[in-house]
């Protein structure tokens, strides 16, 4: 049997008294795009932050490519080939573009000294080749805080791509984007799939998720309420089910 890229077994997470996640079983296949759906506060973001190593689960196990990973941290997850485009973008707005691209993973020469020319060169290449930025305001030395919402999202995505991730996690990537920018993003997620990689896609917009995901996992009140292959379910049916989950906590 082909092993999963990523698997969570019986993962629970509580913050003090609050049980955010309860006994979550989740897996992501090779070259699969999984959509996570769920209402506000369902636990989607907590689940993502466990996968990316930002939060440690209270109990449960995490496997990457079939191997159990103990005490997952953000640097460890990145080494294992997982990159995240966070809902909050995780940008430093007073800093230049090149500093943001290499945030937390600066290219260095020796003893931690920065290889600034190399980082600016790489940033310049990414801008012209991958981001397709044409605005003159966007250059390696410009401050990210001045960019538009779409440009900022572009920075967050290109940053994830640069390090050649096997798994890309996108947390609410279309939030605050224009229609045109959203369409560009959807084609980007399709590009991940075509490149043979895997992705986890979280969005409020069911239509977006339905269009890009192979499989949809519905989270409600910290549990997995159900999952569907998108080829086996119609969009209207999925929407009806989502409304029912939100009202009753059950799929059927």
């Amino acid at each position, binding site marked *: 049997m082909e092993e999963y890229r990523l698997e969570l077994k019986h993962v629970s997470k509580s913050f003090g008294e609050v049980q955010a996640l309860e006994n979550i079983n989740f897996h992501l296949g090779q070259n699969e795009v999984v959509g996570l759906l769920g209402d506000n506060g369902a636990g989607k973001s907590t689940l993502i932050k466990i996968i990316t190593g*930002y939060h440690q689960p209270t109990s449960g196990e995490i496997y990457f490519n079939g191997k159990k990973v103990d005490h997952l941290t953000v640097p460890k997850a990145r*080494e294992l080939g997982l990159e995240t485009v*966070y809902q909050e973008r*995780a940008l430093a707005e007073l800093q230049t573009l090149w500093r943001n691209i290499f945030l937390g993973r600066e290219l260095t020469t020796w003893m931690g000294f*920065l290889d600034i020319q190399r980082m600016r060169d790489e940033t310049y290449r990414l801008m012209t080749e991958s981001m397709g930025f044409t605005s003159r305001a966007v250059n390696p030395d410009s401050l990210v805080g001045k960019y538009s919402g779409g440009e900022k999202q572009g920075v967050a995505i290109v940053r994830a791509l640069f390090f050649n991730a096997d798994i890309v996690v996108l947390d609410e990537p279309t939030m605050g984007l224009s229609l045109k920018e959203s369409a560009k993003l959807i084609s980007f997620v399709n590009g991940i799939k075509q490149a043979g990689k895997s992705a986890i896609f979280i969005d409020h917009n069911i239509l977006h998720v339905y269009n890009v995901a192979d499989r949809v996992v519905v989270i409600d009140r910290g549990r997995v309420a159900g999952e569907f292959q998108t080829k086996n379910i119609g969009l209207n049916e999925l929407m009806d089910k989502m409304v029912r989950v939100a009202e009753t906590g059950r799929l059927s």
Partner: protein
Amino acid sequence: MNSQNKARLPEITQHYKPPFNLRRFIRTNSAQLGILGVFVTLWIIFIVSAPKTFLAPHIYSAFMASTPFFAIMAIPLTIVVIAKEIDLSFPSIMAMGMVSFNYTYGATTFIHNTTIQVFLAIVAALVTGAIIGWLNGFIIVKFGIPSLVVTIGTQFLWSGADLVLTQGANFSLEYIKQTFFYNLFVGTIGPYFPMQMFWLIVVTILGWILLNRHRFGAHVYLIGDNINSAELMGINTGRVRIQAFMLVGVVSAFAGILASFYVAYFWPNVGGGYLLQTLASVFLGGTSVFGGTGTILGTFLGAFIIGAIEAATVAVGLTGFWTNFIYGLIIVLSVIMHTYLRKRGE
């Protein structure tokens, strides 16, 4: 991990070398150019109103002798402020470093070699500074208490410990003049150039390199800008901040050594009076209290503006009573200028 990242990259074929653009240069360096403008303007005012004083080398020699004692601490303090923290405890670290110095010197008399004793005492002072800095950082990071509150507390704590340990005694350190450390730290090169100025320049250059050319500095800027982003991207924000406080600790202890050596005398409140001058240097230099922006060069210039005002006030014919008023005026106007420049730069 780094080599791995690099190995995945294709060769760079095209270098990014933007043509020099004066407008962009001015915009990206507006804070430093702003304080440089203030610096030069004041200088011209001083020269015009008191040409005899300000066209002779003596006054500059005097500035270079007295300013480094606090300017040297303003350099690591700039790094702490860029990381959106503050340290108000450095005056007490100056004193505690010297307390360690005295204890170590006293406890090593069996060596019968003043130079080795003084060397060990210097090491003890610097280590004490590092430990107190570490403790500041540790309390701030582990308990999540704002650094303003913690370092007000530790300032009282260590200046109190200083008084308890010394019983308020002050005494001569004449013996240091027998060692080469005296000339190395507070001697002069030629007739006019004090060694403490040399050490200030060394610390300034090291601080600049650390902040602008090293991963540590990159992380300091990111933490001050958006600590949440820094954490999401895997930066150990606690460790970086603790290291920044340790830098202030070590350099403050060194400043305590310089100030005590200069007069070859120990007095328990050696750091007293440096608190506001050091803080003012940082903010005058354009470092934002909101974190994420600030420069070492700005702080350096800010410190010399602060250092010059007192002497200049008297030299231009005003009474010493004017000093604080002029300090205040320049600080307030400069901070307004910096805020304006930052807003325009956004």
